[in-house]
Each structure stands twice: as structure tokens, then as C-alpha cells.
């Protein structure tokens, strides 16, 4: 176990270095990418820009800039190139909204897709299965900015059932927290439910033909026992690993569209703003955060994997 943890920690460091390096190089390659131009504003003179270059080190070699940027991020001294705010403070402020969105939606999409996928597999080829297939395809091809806009217009703006957007912390009012998140949870989940339920359906249909399922029937178990104890237990393994990685993405600010449509002021929305302002230091910090969660949760998934399937050993 300890060897597993050490290996995963090393992998985490490697992934974070690689991904931050890629992001940094990408921004260096963008034309007019020099942050000094934007920091100085429209009316700046070349001298002013030059002063900013010296102050932030933008005229230094790129590897020096990279090291300096990383240093600033990890010491909490990173300030946005476009807005001037402290990046870490801003991420911390956005994190509760993002985490609330991710955990709620994650639970909804996991449980719903297990139910939908199982139902579709049990009814494979029948009318129910076909209807669910069409619904799943619709869900997969439903972009959040469209679904979100439709839901906001009809359920929030016209019917007034839900607020049109924004985030209320749980500590402030659990009820308001919930009401504000219902539509975002739904919008984000629809995307994943379609995909996950299809994956689960096909895994179940493969598992049904396994010899041990036949054995389970031959033992005299009921169809329900065969389904839940033997088929489903074995079919959930791939879904769980997908879920861990997708959830990590969303926690790390990956649900950019959903967060922006519902104006949640989360990490994802911060990322969207940073991209449009070419605010590289903010973006770097968010990318590192995402990478951290992806690597961390994939390790958690592996531990859970070993628990689900005793043939898998961690080290």
C-alpha cells in the first residue's frame, strides 16, 4: 500500500509539471501573448510596457518565466494579469460553488445512469430499451449552453420555479443552496447520464453471457439476485473508473459551460474568464488544480477498484 501511495505521488508531480509546462508553452506561442500589453492598458506607452516587462520578468527567458510563475502560484503570490486579484483567493472563493455542483451532479448522474443502463439492458431490444436509447442519444448531444438556456427561460424566467442563476453557500441557507443548484445539477448530469447508461448497458449485456452468471442461475437464485449480486456487481467496475475521472474534472473546474450559463462564480467560470482575457497565471493555477484532482481521484478509483475486483492488486 505504501509503495502504491509513493508511486502515485511521484506520478502526480510528473503529471502536474508536464501539464503546467504545456499550458505555459501554449500561451507563449499565442500572438500578442505578452501579458505586459494587457496589464498596461490601451493607452500605454512603450516605456510603460517595458517597465512592466522588467517588473514581472516578461523579458526574461521563457524557462525563467515558467519557474517564476510556478513559484508565485505555490507561494500564493500569483496576481491576475488582467484583474489584479490574488489568484489563490479567487480560486478559494469559487471552490465551494464548483464542489457543490460536482458532488451533487456526480451523485445524480452516477445513480441515474446505473438505473437507466440496467433497465435498458434488462429490456434489451424491447420498446423501453429503444426509448431509453433515443433519450440517451439526445442527452449526449445536448450541450449545456443550450439545455441551460432553455431551462432558465422556461423554468426560471417564465415559470419562476427556480432562480435564474447564481450560487448561495450551504452555510448561508441550505434551502437556497439546493434551489440554486437544481438546474445546474440537472444540466450537467444529462450529458453524462446518456453516455454512462450506454456504457453500462453494453457491459451488462456482455456480463450476462459470462459462465458465472449461468452458474448463478443454475444455483437456483432468482433473476433479481442474479442481476444485482452477480451481473451488476461485475458490470459496475468500468463505470466507477469513468466516474472518478469525470468527477475530478468537474471538481477541478471542468464544467465551464454549466458554471457560466448559471453564473455560479465557480472555478470553471473563473477559467472561462481567464481564457478570454489571456490571463495565463490564473489559468495555470486552475489547470494545476484540475490535474491534482484527476491524479488524486484516479488513485482513489484504483483503490476502490481493488475492492470491487479482488483479482486486482495495488502493487
Amino acid at each position, binding site marked *: 500500500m505504501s509503495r502504491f501511495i509513493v508511486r502515485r505521488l511521484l506520478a502526480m508531480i510528473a503529471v502536474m509539471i508536464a501539464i503546467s509546462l504545456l499550458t505555459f508553452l501554449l500561451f507563449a506561442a499565442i500572438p500578442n501573448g505578452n501579458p505586459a500589453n494587457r496589464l498596461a492598458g490601451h493607452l500605454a506607452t512603450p516605456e510603460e510596457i517595458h517597465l512592466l516587462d522588467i517588473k514581472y520578468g516578461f523579458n526574461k527567458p521563457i524557462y525563467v518565466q515558467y519557474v517564476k510563475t510556478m513559484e508565485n502560484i505555490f507561494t500564493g503570490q500569483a496576481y491576475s494579469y488582467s484583474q489584479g486579484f490574488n489568484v489563490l483567493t479567487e480560486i478559494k472563493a469559487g471552490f465551494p460553488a464548483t464542489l457543490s455542483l460536482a458532488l451533487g451532479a456526480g451523485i445524480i448522474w452516477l445513480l441515474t445512469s446505473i438505473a437507466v443502463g440496467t433497465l435498458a439492458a434488462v429490456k434489451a431490444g424491447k420498446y423501453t430499451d429503444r426509448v431509453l436509447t433515443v433519450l440517451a442519444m439526445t442527452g449526449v448531444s445536448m450541450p449545456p449552453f443550450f439545455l441551460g438556456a432553455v431551462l432558465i427561460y422556461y423554468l426560471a424566467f417564465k415559470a419562476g420555479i427556480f432562480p435564474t442563476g447564481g450560487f448561495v453557500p450551504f452555510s448561508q441557507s441550505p434551502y437556497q443552496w439546493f434551489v440554486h443548484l437544481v438546474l445546474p445539477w440537472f444540466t450537467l448530469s444529462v450529458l453524462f447520464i446518456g453516455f454512462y447508461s450506454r456504457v453500462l448497458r453494453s457491459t451488462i449485456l456482455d456480463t450476462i453471457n459470462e459462465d458465472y452468471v*449461468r452458474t448463478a442461475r443454475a444455483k437456483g437464485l432468482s433473476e433479481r439476485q442474479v442481476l444485482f449480486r452477480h451481473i451488476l456487481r461485475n458490470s459496475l467496475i468500468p463505470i466507477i473508473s469513468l466516474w472518478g475521472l469525470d468527477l475530478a474534472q468537474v471538481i477541478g473546474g471542468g464544467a465551464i459551460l454549466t458554471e457560466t450559463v448559471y453564473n455560479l462564480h465557480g472555478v470553471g467560470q473563473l477559467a472561462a474568464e481567464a481564457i478570454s482575457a489571456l490571463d495565463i497565471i490564473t489559468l495555470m493555477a486552475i489547470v494545476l488544480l484540475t490535474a491534482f484532482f484527476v491524479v488524486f481521484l484516479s488513485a482513489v478509483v484504483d483503490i476502490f477498484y481493488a475492492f470491487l475486483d479482488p483479482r486486482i492488486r495495488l502493487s
Partner: protein
Amino acid sequence: MSANAPLLEVSDLKVSFATEDGTVRAVDGVSFSIRPGEVVAIVGESGSGKSVTAMTLMGLTRGPNARFEGTAMFAGRDLVTAPESELQRIRGGDIAMVFQDPMSSLDPVYRIGNQIVEQIRAHDSHISKAAALDRAVDLMERVGVPHARERLRSYPHEFSGGMRQRVMIAMALSCSPKLLIADEPTTALDVTIQAQILEELRKLRAETGAAIILVTHDLGVVADIADRIVVMYSGRVVEQGTLEELFYDPQHPYTWGLLGSIMRVDSDRSQRLPAIPGSPPSLLRPPAGCHLRPRCPHAFEKCTEVPLLKAGLAAAPEHLDRCWLDREQKLKLRTVDGRIGLAAPSEVNA
């Protein structure tokens, strides 16, 4: 019920499956019976319908595309038409099954003990988990698994193939079945383990008095353990009788071919091992009449009609075969090079 009354009586069982290419007649008229404590072997090559027959008795071939005819009477119930709930009680209870591949027949994610206990409790809802575990230990010891109590905590992947098959047998025995169906129980195992598993089955019959249906393609296995043999070809029973009748007085050309293709220690190694020419017919479009006709060197006009399964000798009313040749012809034709075999087509023409 008298000692001679059959435990299971299958009459004219037919199983067909609707596929995209048409109807597959996997089993096309199978009749046999088995008495308490008897070992009946169903022998045939792949695709002969022997496994489908065995699984149909357990209701494991049921599905939207499957059609059944005929009956399989077991303790006053017809297994072919019994409702699913009734079959559920019988499966793993009065009739238990051991499958071909022990490597994949156990659920990889549960401990062996839990898998045995699951079956015991499926048939006896009052038994406590501890009592069921004790019974599992007992069963495992009976089929020769050492350190049974500790081994119950192991997962299937921690067992060898032979040990897994012992677990499968222990599981099958857990509810004291009256009939054990073993579908190629030794095929996936290496030879030394095969002998051990057969020994286990033999012991088991002696100790519990359970009848055994042994499905196999291996006549060597059959000779070791079976009382009676049912030979299947292309969905039909072509011959059945006692072990002695089948080995020393075979009546059907297909049985001759099977016997002729057994490797013998004393045979001349310089010659090729005789094989039955051709391959089994498609079950989608089987030939009219006798299914062996296209491969049979002794076929004649009459063979385009389906022969009946009937006794050739009044003195042996249970030795049945499905061939149009008369007995004298058969006795003459079945001897090839001084032993029983199916002549090569050229030899017949000459």
C-alpha cells in the same frame, strides 16, 4: 416409487432457436431415461446438441428465441413446461449442474465460501450463515479440498483449475441433489486432474446415491464411469444402450466411427488415426433423412427417410439405434481391419 422407476424421463425433446439465418434445430428428438443412482453419459461431438439437452433440463436455454417440444418428466413435473419459479427451486436443489470451464464458472468477485453459502441459503431460507458455512466446510472436505475452512475465504482466482472444479462439485452437492448434470466436467482440465475429478464423481455416486448425467465428447471418460451411454449426432440420439452394448456391440455407423477413432496403446503408430470423414451438418439446414447420410459410407436409398430409434434385438430392448441397415449387414460392415470402425469411403466402393 419402485427402484426401477426412472428418476428422469426425457421423451422426444426438441429445442430450436430462431436466429437471423433461420431456425437452428439444436436438439431434434432426444429420448432417454435415467434411474436413481445411475450414471448416464451423453456422448457426441461439438454441436451435437448434448449441452443444449443438458441445459434445457435445467431451464437454462429458455429465452425469447427458443422453442421447445417434448417432455422431461422429473418427480412428476415436466421440466420443459414448468414455470420459472418452480424451476428455480429445482435448480441447485434436486437437480444440480457442474459446468465445463471451472476457470470462468465461479464469480470472480466473491469468496468461494460466500458462493457456496449463497446456494445453500437460496434453498433453505432458515439456515443461519454460520451453519451454512459449516456445511460448506463439510462439502469442501468431501470433495477433497485441503484446509477447507481457510480456503473458503479465498477468491476463485486463488484456486487452480482442478480445485475450482472441486468447488463447483461441492456447490452442486450442497443441497443433496437427486440428479447431478455434469457438462464436460473434465474437458478443461489436464489429464491427471481429469482422473481425480472422475474419481470424485464416482465416490459421490457411491456415497449419495445421486444419479449423474455426464455430458462429454470423450469416450475414455465414459468407459471409466458410465452405466449407460446415449450417443448424439446432429441433434438426435443415434444409439443408446449399456456401456457393454455400446462398446462391444455398437449398431450405428456413427458409433463405429467414434470407437474406431480412439487412440490405442497397442495400435500401429505408422498408420494415421482413423477419423470420420467430412464434418457435421449445419443445424440450420440438416440433410433430409438420416443426418449422418452425407458422411456415411454405408448409406443407401432408404437413408433419405428419418430412421426410427428402435431396438435391434428383442433380447436387448433398451439397446436402441437409429439406422436403416439390418442387423446382419451391420455386424459385417462394422469390422474394419479386424476391429470396429467406420470404413473409409473408397474401401466400400472397391
